[in-house]
């Protein structure tokens, strides 16, 4: 079966840190509107791959092509404006700011947020802000965070902080979302909520690439699974195919 290459693909991507090859000649693609997962043991190169794709690390070799554009020379903030955004394993929230501000800051606002924005007439500023406030409310509502909008993020539980990080991600309005370990540290109940949330996003037209350790959750919600080990892809396919792959089971599950 031929898979559609036009949305996002990685070709021969490599990255070494000194003598350690973190990502070696990795190629894969993500189809528009799918939920693709990257799995692999600790140190397999998953987060490095994310950092390469989102522009936080320069690749040694290879190409990353998003909607026909090579991302090689693009800075992280440029990549966001192309429609791709990511979360971090450590969340990287603005912990001293409120939930509301964290989400609100994710919204695009180049002109308003520039130094020159200080000179914008108030009515114009207010009009722009009203639209953004509406969007913030929608996102908070969607994630069930409305009640906590005014709280400082530092005071929230881990589960709620994860939701805020997803809220901030959604605020960027990216169509391609990269989630780094969204299920880690969550309770079973929270994972169920996350699963339906992510599937919901896909059904709303988003494309998701995620990295996670939770095999069960990943297999449940993914359309496509890619297995990394020591920086190389050892298998990829539909969840059922991956579960039936002996090498994956041996390396990843240690059975």
């Amino acid at each position: 079966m031929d898979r559609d290459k036009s949305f996002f693909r990685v070709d021969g991507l490599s990255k070494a840190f000194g003598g350690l090859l973190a990502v070696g000649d990795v190629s894969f693609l993500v189809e528009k509107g799918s939920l693709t997962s990257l799995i692999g043991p600790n140190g397999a190169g998953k987060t490095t791959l994310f950092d390469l794709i989102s522009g936080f690390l320069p690749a040694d070799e290879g190409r990353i092509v998003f909607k026909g554009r090579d991302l090689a020379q693009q800075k992280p903030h440029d990549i966001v404006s192309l429609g791709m955004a990511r979360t971090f394993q450590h969340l990287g929230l603005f912990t001293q700011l409120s939930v509301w501000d964290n989400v609100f800051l994710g919204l695009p606002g180049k002109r308003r947020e520039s130094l020159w924005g200080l000179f914008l007439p108030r009515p114009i500023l207010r009009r722009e802000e009203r639209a953004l406030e509406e969007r913030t409310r929608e996102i908070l509502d969607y994630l069930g965070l409305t009640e906590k909008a005014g709280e400082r993020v530092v005071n929230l539980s881990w589960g709620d902080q994860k939701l805020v990080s997803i809220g901030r991600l959604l605020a960027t309005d990216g169509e391609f979302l990269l989630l780094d370990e969204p299920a880690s540290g969550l309770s079973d109940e929270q994972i169920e909520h996350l699963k339906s949330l992510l599937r919901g996003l896909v059904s709303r037209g988003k494309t998701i690439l995620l990295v996670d350790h939770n095999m069960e959750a990943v297999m449940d919600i993914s359309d496509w699974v890619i297995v990394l080990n020591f920086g190389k892809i050892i298998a990829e396919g539909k969840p059922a195919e991956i579960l039936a792959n002996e090498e994956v089971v041996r390396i990843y599950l240690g059975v």
Partner: protein
Amino acid sequence: MIYLSYVISLIAVYGVLTISLNLSVGYTGILSLAQAAFMGIGAYSAAILLTQWGFNFFTTLLVGMAVAGLVSWGLAWATLRLKGDYYVIASFGFQVILYNIFLNWIGLTRGPFGIRQIPPPEIFGFSFLGPQRYALFTLGILALCLWVARRVGESPYGKVLRAIREDEAAAASIGKNVNRYKMSIFTVTAMLASVGGALYASLITYIDPFTFTIHESIFILALVIIGGSGNVYGSVIGAAVLISLPEMLRFFDVPTAVASPIREILYGALMIIFLRLRPKGLLPERITSGVVR
């Protein structure tokens, strides 16, 4: 009264210098040790243009701001990519370079001889000569500076600066051009510092390179931290406390030779006491939440 006016002017001048540094240090988390260098650019621009070229004070302010702006933009471009501690060292290096330029470019700055008889500001024929008038003038500029800093702090731009302070990578991950923000606020800081420098030159009427040393940069940084990093009113309070407390020594019968080291020791002790008892400064930052229901 004359003495009091002088102290008020000095507090206002340092208030301007502290507020401007707070924009970088407090709002954005750029720890800079180059504030005295930009203060020096403003002071020398004013001193040279006023005494040798007969410029109007306000024109010299603009020239000083332009020079400081350009220089800081270049410095920011070259160094702000450096992270945290590395940037601090780079700004220290820049401070040392500028000090040596002030000291050794004798044709321009008169080097160690300094520049004397710097006249007071004049506007439409009205001279701010005399301590009381000058105090009013500096307070006016301080108020303007406070207004600008508050505007910046409360704006969407200021919100992004705080986000950058908390997590640069996260700010970049939601599409903020972190380098551009850091360069722009650093340039604003340098331009306002040059205003502080020009006011200083006009207040003291004499400048030499020994004012614009790393010692001065650290002193202004201490004012930011003691006043309250991220709170611009704190910067004014910090300047008021640290300028006026040692001045009180004058009311005791202390010989000058002893007063000077005592003042230094007092500064040191105050810093330690404040950081021990009020690590967030006299007026800690107040972060307002922008919830709109």
